[in-house]
């Protein structure tokens, strides 16, 4: 009964995986994937010589790390704070409002944010102009592009993390809170010394996943928001693959880049998983 599914998997997932051998071939359009001549690691040697490739790698990792440092704590803090709220309707409303952005496509968000951050028409610049007298081209200025990327990414993803951490908070034993109160802890201290440590297992798991996916800096978001003026800070591996592959037609290079990314990604994922298993006895397998 499961055979059709397996067949689908084989065709749609594994066949393309075999296509990574393109990374070792010199693609000849006439001969196609199977007929092109094998040239070994020459493609990779050529790839590693391209400065734009390393720029893309640098950008991917930088953006991921920035998103991690700035964005990772946000849903945790929000969940902790929201957990302290008494009113059920208030809690539900905040959760609903913060979660909604997660359901929106970046195609849509790209349009909205281009308008919102627009130098001439967006309300962000309107307020900045009113207070500081200057206007910032958030989406075209290399200095501001990454912060804009990160802030919007936090905005869109915050609700998702909050759900996870709020769920994690519900499994903390109430007795711990009672003991803390008896010892004289106020709400803020209880949050710091009971809620936060109780959330650690969930936090660690999420951290493993985030670090494991570090090679992937959020393609759809960057794709809708970037433009040639910010390639130096915003071009990530996947956008690079898209440009040299589908736009320039450089199939071998593009495949090699993709292989580099997923290969490193797998290694990273396994390494982080092993470290976490050793250190905190937590694993995702």
């Amino acid at each position, binding site marked *: 009964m499961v055979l059709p599914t397996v067949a689908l998997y084989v065709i749609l*997932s594994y066949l393309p995986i075999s*296509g990574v051998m393109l990374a070792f071939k010199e693609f000849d359009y006439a001969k196609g994937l199977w007929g092109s001549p094998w040239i070994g690691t020459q493609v990779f040697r050529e790839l590693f010589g391209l400065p734009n490739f390393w720029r893309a790698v640098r950008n991917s990792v930088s953006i991921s790390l920035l998103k991690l440092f700035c964005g990772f704590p946000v849903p945790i803090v929000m969940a902790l704070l929201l957990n302290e709220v008494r009113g059920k309707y208030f809690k539900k409303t905040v959760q609903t409002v913060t979660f909604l952005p997660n*359901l929106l496509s970046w195609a849509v968000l790209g349009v909205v944010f281009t*308008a919102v951050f627009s130098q001439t028409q967006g*309300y962000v610049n309107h307020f900045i102009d009113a207070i500081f007298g200057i206007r910032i081209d958030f989406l075209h200025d290399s200095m501001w592009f990454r912060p804009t990327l990160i802030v919007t990414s936090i905005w869109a993803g915050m609700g998702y993390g909050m759900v996870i951490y709020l*769920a994690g908070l519900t499994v903390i034993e109430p007795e711990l809170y009672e003991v803390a109160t008896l010892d004289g802890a106020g*709400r803020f201290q209880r949050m710091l010394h009971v809620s936060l440590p109780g959330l650690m297992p969930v936090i660690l798991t999420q951290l493993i996943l985030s670090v494991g996916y570090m090679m992937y800096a959020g393609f759809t978001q960057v794709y809708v928001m970037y433009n040639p003026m910010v390639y130096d800070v915003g071009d990530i591996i996947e956008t690079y693959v898209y440009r040299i592959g589908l736009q320039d037609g450089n199939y071998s290079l593009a495949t090699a880049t993709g292989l580099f990314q997923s290969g490193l990604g797998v290694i990273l994922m396994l390494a982080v998983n092993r470290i976490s298993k050793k250190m905190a006895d937590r694993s995702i397998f």
Partner: protein
Amino acid sequence: MSVRRMSGDRLFGLVNGLFLVLVAMVCFLPIWYALNSSILPFKAYLKDPTHLLPLGFTLDSYRDALRDASVWRSFANGLLVMLGTVILALCTTITSAYTLTRKQLPGRRILVCIFLIPMFFGGGLIPTYLVWKQLHLLNSLWGLMLAGCLNGYWMLILKATMDGLPESLEESARIDGAQDFQVVWYIMIPLCKATLACIALMVGVGTWNEFFWAQIVMVDPSKYTFMVYLRQLFTRISILQGTGAASAVGGVPTATITFQMAIVCIGVMPIVIIYPLVQRYFVKGIMMGAIKA
């Protein structure tokens, strides 16, 4: 001392509440901007540069947007692909999850590997594109449905749910002579309804929002899904604005922000409409994922 502690708590509660309200408002602001901009009459649009004040109400922008037949067609295409993908996804996850619960099955480990590996490692953009080309899946809405239907992640969650069901149910069904298919149809599916609802919703939303791969494989504009059409429209508008061929003030209607936001709101409408009704399923879906991990 207890009085001081209580007022400290009260202060914390107050500050906390205010802070959360502020965050919620800032969070909602872009959405409000899109909504408000889409219903602003043209004069009000010119008067308030932030487009944040609710200075009026008109459905003119929506009328302009809906006058374009492509909007309707791409919307229908999007719905079709979403429906097809969800159905296919449910089929694949149910069959594979159930199969994996059969502990006596030889080669079960291999099956798990087969399903798990694509979650972490893929062929990449170009190889996948070339394979699709060879299989004649390009430029086809039916092909697009296949793109989103394989989901190892949800299969694992469904399998966990199925494992949680008591074995006696299945045993008694087998004693009554039920085959695999009947067990799945009459027992597993009804009992896993909540999980299946989560999967359907998550896959549905994901498919509706998907535009990148859909854009790559579709050459025929009449087959665009809604998000692809939105992207195409928007990039065209950007180019127009860039060259100054249309300005936002009294220029071609397609260049105004009200028009853009109307299209945006149309695109977001399916999700926003069902969201309050089924929010708990989204939450449950995420929680199941987190707990499983």
